[in-house]
């Protein structure tokens, strides 16, 4: 696969493990590339990543560009920006996608700035279509779709004049598609040249706990919003989650209020979830929140305001004060037998 103009995904590795979001993006890239009639490429930087690079080909990837160097084993902004911009200049992809992780959000903007190209953050959908600008027709460009600040609105962003077109996407937004075991692709490895001027970040300590919040894998999520009114009432929502063996979710407003850690945030700039059951307590259902939970199989909304938008996407609605509804729910569940 030597042709240019492909769809490229930045493959994030953490201590050698490939980030889930990178694989999700490879699946989306395959769909976009098929629509465009081009190939899918991964860009992977690290040290000793050959085996992992090969495994990725099974996701329908045509080419993994593996850039190897000891200094790339752990992410650092300067060396990564250098090897990625070099690679993009050489491979000339038309699209580059990044996971909207701490790393992707550190790296993507630097690359965009170096290449003077656009970058759209936290897209909730990506499509291919045409765009007319000043009488000129741009065919098959990337529609970067995301909720916009200002209410119930979705913006479609394009960057037709500059290549590559770049976007970041949160984990869980794009779905995994089945592997393509017979797919033929290549791993092309290069040894990076990294000068001492790029080695400015010294990692002194790295502390990671195993993920304690697993929203993406949860079958049931009980989520709380600012409607809880206080930390104590929010704890009531946590109690319901606990009783049901569910994961605890939250709106950004509840996170901002300091009632719950950011890791619990559901939505455009949090986690996207598709559980069997989502119970929204005191959440109005803003577009940014809905972007992360609207595909739940079943939604129960508990809200004092019968006109709250959440009722428009819910399957069951309870108009009432969560301080009364939740204890009744817990009681009924405990008496189930």
């Amino acid at each position, binding site marked *: 696969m030597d042709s240019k103009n492909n769809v490229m995904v930045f493959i994030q590795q953490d201590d050698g493990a490939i980030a889930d979001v990178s694989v999700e993006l490879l699946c989306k890239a395959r769909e976009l590339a098929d629509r465009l009639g081009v190939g899918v490429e991964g860009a992977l930087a690290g040290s000793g990543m050959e085996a992992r690079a090969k495994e990725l080909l099974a996701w329908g990837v045509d080419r993994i560009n593996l850039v190897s160097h000891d200094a790339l084993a752990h992410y650092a902004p300067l060396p990564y920006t250098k090897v990625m911009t070099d690679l993009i200049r050489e491979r000339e992809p038309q699209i580059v996608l990044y996971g909207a992780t701490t790393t992707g*959000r550190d790296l993507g903007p630097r690359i965009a700035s170096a290449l003077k190209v656009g970058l759209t*953050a*936290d897209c909730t959908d990506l499509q291919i279509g045409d765009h007319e600008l000043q009488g000129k027709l741009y065919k098959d460009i990337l529609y970067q779709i995301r909720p916009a600040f200002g209410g119930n*609105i979705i913006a479609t*962003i394009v960057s037709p004049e500059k290549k590559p077109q770049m976007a970041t996407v949160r984990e869980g937004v794009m779905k995994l598609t089945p592997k393509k075991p017979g797919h033929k692709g290549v791993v092309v490895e290069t040894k990076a040249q990294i000068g001492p001027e790029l080695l*400015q*970040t010294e990692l002194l300590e790295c502390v990671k706990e195993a993920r304690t919040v697993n929203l993406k894998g949860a079958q049931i999520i009980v989520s709380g919003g600012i409607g809880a009114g206080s930390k104590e009432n929010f704890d009531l929502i946590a109690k319901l989650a606990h009783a049901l063996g569910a994961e605890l979710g939250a709106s950004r407003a509840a996170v901002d209020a300091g009632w719950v850690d950011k890791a619990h945030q559901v939505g455009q700039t949090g986690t996207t979830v598709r559980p069997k059951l989502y119970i929204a307590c005191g959440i109005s259902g803003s577009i940014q929140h809905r972007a992360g939970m609207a595909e739940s199989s079943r939604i129960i909304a508990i809200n004092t305001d019968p006109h709250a938008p959440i009722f428009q996407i819910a399957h069951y609605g309870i108009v009432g004060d969560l301080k009364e509804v939740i204890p*009744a*729910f817990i009681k009924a569940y405990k008496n*189930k037998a």
Partner: protein
Amino acid sequence: MSLNIVVLVKQVPDTKNVTGKAMKDDGTVNRAALPAIFNPEDLHALEAALTVKDRNPGTRVNVITMGPPSAAQVLKESLYRGADFVALISDRKFAGADTLATSYALKCAIEKIGGVDLVFCGRQAIDGDTAQVGPQTAEKLGMNQVTCVSAFGAETNAVDAKKRTITARRSIEGGYEVVRTKMPALLTFTDEGFSPRPPSARRVMAYKNAVAAATNDASYDECYMNASACKDDEIIVLWDIASIKADPESCGLAGSPTKVKKIDSVVLTAQDIRMIDNTEEGIARLVHELIADHTIG
């Protein structure tokens, strides 16, 4: 040893207030109804800079913002808290800037200040959550960056003006990292580790009138339109596109590769929703149904 720090701040609509009253009938926000506030994480970045100043006397804290004349309010609030120099970058030609064009203008302003050791800003602004302007500015300045900083390193010389290094703790998924980098560097701050100091009463008295005079004065508009003519000793310095030597082609809409193709209002059409009686019996019935069909167990 003293340092020269630039803090980048932004005035943002208070997104917490995007409810009820602020909504128009078509479901969009009436921006005029939203209060404008100091972007919360930028206030933490300012606090971090003032902390460095407390520990390294003689350090200069410069605060700059890009925005319309009304954005001078966040500069005023920075003065109240201890900023030494504040500048408003304002020009009609900056209108429509995406994050790339914004970072270019900020880079030009930082270069105008010159001799900068550290650039601090909030990780992201609450009206976009993109977290792009910090890294994009760092790249344009050729500086290293540390994003998502929640605290400086615990050691007393975490900010070492002599060795020109800075040690910071940054939040990452499920944990944190402690990294050290050389200066100059750009750091972006979360709202976790610093508690912004309140305005000092003495400084409010000192700057309240002076700044108000600058913003209410009839000549202010003229000053804004032709900022390069302003005296440098104005309390709030106004810089336009010429005074920061920015190339108009790289500013505003012209310098923004991303364009909004279209904005769609999302019309929600109520689907089949079953309203559950808000009574113990109604809720118990729902719970039993969910158990019966194995949704909960």
